[in-house]
């Protein structure tokens, strides 16, 4: 059994996979990686199934000791990783020799970096998923963020390996998958509760991600958006990426640890193809919204999935 010793956890590091779908009727939201595209690619780099559990680091990464030989990859934002003081490339599989230490630091780009390990991180599954749901303290490693001294088990799903072959993600694909600051949205279920002028102002405006944002919701600051309802309605099921307008007029984008239902009107909904971009937004980042037709949203998702499925995505 291979292990990882957490020498320093970083700001907020959790075990995540692609989440648990299907438990809306009992009030459990999927959780899962905030930037699932990076998680999926990182897992492919180390030879795992796309949805294997990995470590999601937030803004400032941690330090991890590997007592045994392992293969790892870092995907997502550049946290300035080094292996025994030698810089490590992003988006590349890396062989770790027994006793080596992987260090990461503050981010140089976006909000999250995934540390994927061949075999995946092994934790007790909660409702079929390894994902941590921080708010409810369920899933992942004891339902919480990692702490100094934690010891993680590496799974055996990757099998044993003899020879290590380095793989990297091709540059043109990474360029196409770059996180966006102009988020494409489709109209929300209550978009007609907002006056035309309000909607125009929303799409023309620039919003800043507030410090209080977390995996449950991304809170935005900027020109308040007022709805004709005064911000209240009957609670209904809410969708990932929904842009809900609170009573004070400030938007909150529902994120991976979202409530399953909510009582604020939704002016827009981030398209599926741009959900991973949400996971890379940092506090104080400025974003804008761009309205697209449903057909466009569908085509963008299909194109993204096609790109992710290409064999040439990773080259040796």
């Amino acid at each position: 059994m291979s292990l990882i010793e957490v020498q320093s956890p970083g700001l907020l590091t959790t075990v995540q996979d692609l989440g648990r779908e299907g438990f809306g009727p009992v009030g459990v939201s999927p959780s899962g990686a905030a930037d699932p595209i990076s998680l999926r690619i990182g897992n492919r780099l180390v030879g795992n199934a796309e949805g294997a559990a990995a470590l999601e680091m937030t803004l400032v990464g941690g330090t991890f000791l590997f007592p045994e030989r392992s293969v790892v990859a870092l995907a997502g934002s550049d946290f300035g990783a080094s292996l025994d003081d030698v810089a490590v490339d992003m988006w590349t599989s890396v062989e770790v020799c027994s006793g080596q230490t992987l260090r990461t630091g503050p981010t140089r780009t976006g909000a999250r970096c995934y540390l994927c390990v061949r075999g995946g991180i092994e934790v007790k599954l909660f409702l079929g998923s390894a994902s941590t749901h921080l708010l409810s303290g369920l899933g992942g490693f004891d339902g919480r963020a990692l702490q100094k001294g934690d010891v993680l088990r590496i799974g055996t799903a990757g099998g044993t390996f003899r020879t290590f072959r380095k793989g990297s993600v091709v540059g043109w694909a990474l360029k196409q998958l770059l996180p966006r600051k102009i988020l494409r949205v489709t109209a929300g279920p209550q978009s007609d509760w907002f006056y035309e002028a309000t909607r125009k102002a929303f799409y023309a405006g620039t919003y800043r991600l507030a410090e209080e944002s977390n995996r449950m919701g991304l809170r935005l600051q900027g020109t308040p958006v007022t709805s004709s309802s005064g911000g209240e309605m009957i609670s209904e099921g809410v969708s990932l990426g929904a842009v809900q307008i609170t009573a004070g007029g400030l938007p909150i984008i529902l994120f991976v640890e979202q409530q399953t239902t909510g009582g604020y009107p939704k002016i827009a909904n981030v398209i599926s193809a741009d959900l991973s971009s949400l996971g890379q937004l940092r506090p104080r980042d400025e974003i804008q919204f761009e309205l697209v037709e449903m057909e466009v949203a569908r085509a963008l998702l299909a194109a993204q999935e096609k790109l992710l499925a290409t064999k040439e995505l990773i080259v040796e």
Partner: protein
Amino acid sequence: MRFQVASDQSLLVYFDPAAKKGEAEGPPPKEQITLEAREQVRRLLRLLELEPIVGVRNLHPAYGSLLIKFDALKLRHDELENLLRTYVERMRSVALPEPRLVEIPVCYGGEYGPDLNEVAELHQMTVEQAIELHASARYLVYFLGFAPGFAYLGDVDEQLATPRLPSPRKSVPAGSVGIAGRQTGVYPISTPGGWRLLGRTPLKMFQPDRAQMSLLALGDRVRFVPIAPQQFVKLALGNA
């Protein structure tokens, strides 16, 4: 019934006649969720659980509506709508589980119900009257949402209806029994929350390793039974 696109991977089904489209800009009146709409949500949810539609990934029931999340690469909104129409036609004959009556012991007031005094004062009644009003009613589980195992129960007696706290507590202990407007509910886990807290139950509302994860299910009836602090401690120890 009305369909509403919610996102590129979700569709809302409204059963509430008040939520008809084409009305002037503005929300439907809040009090218009009929019992029939609630029943229809329950039936459609049940049928979708019994006969899942390929490509449907999640279901979010609420008062008079159901949000259906699906794989956008496998299903289109119009295809899903057509399938759902056939489900709605058939759902009358779905056998619903017999609603259970669940009794929830609650220790009212004191450290367990920090807002009880204020709520009673607000309505110019005694603490005993407030407890009596909350505990004498039979509530219906409308749906589960917000957090794992959090059941929205209604309706609280009009004389006791109280708005949420102006600013939510950072942490509400698990088991806390609160009210918000004419809704009442039990916090299954410790979370931030803005409901006014009247008491606390020693029961575990949500337990992942239990056969029935959530103590309450859609359609159940609930009654709160006042208990003394000594009983609370005894029951809490028994659950540990």
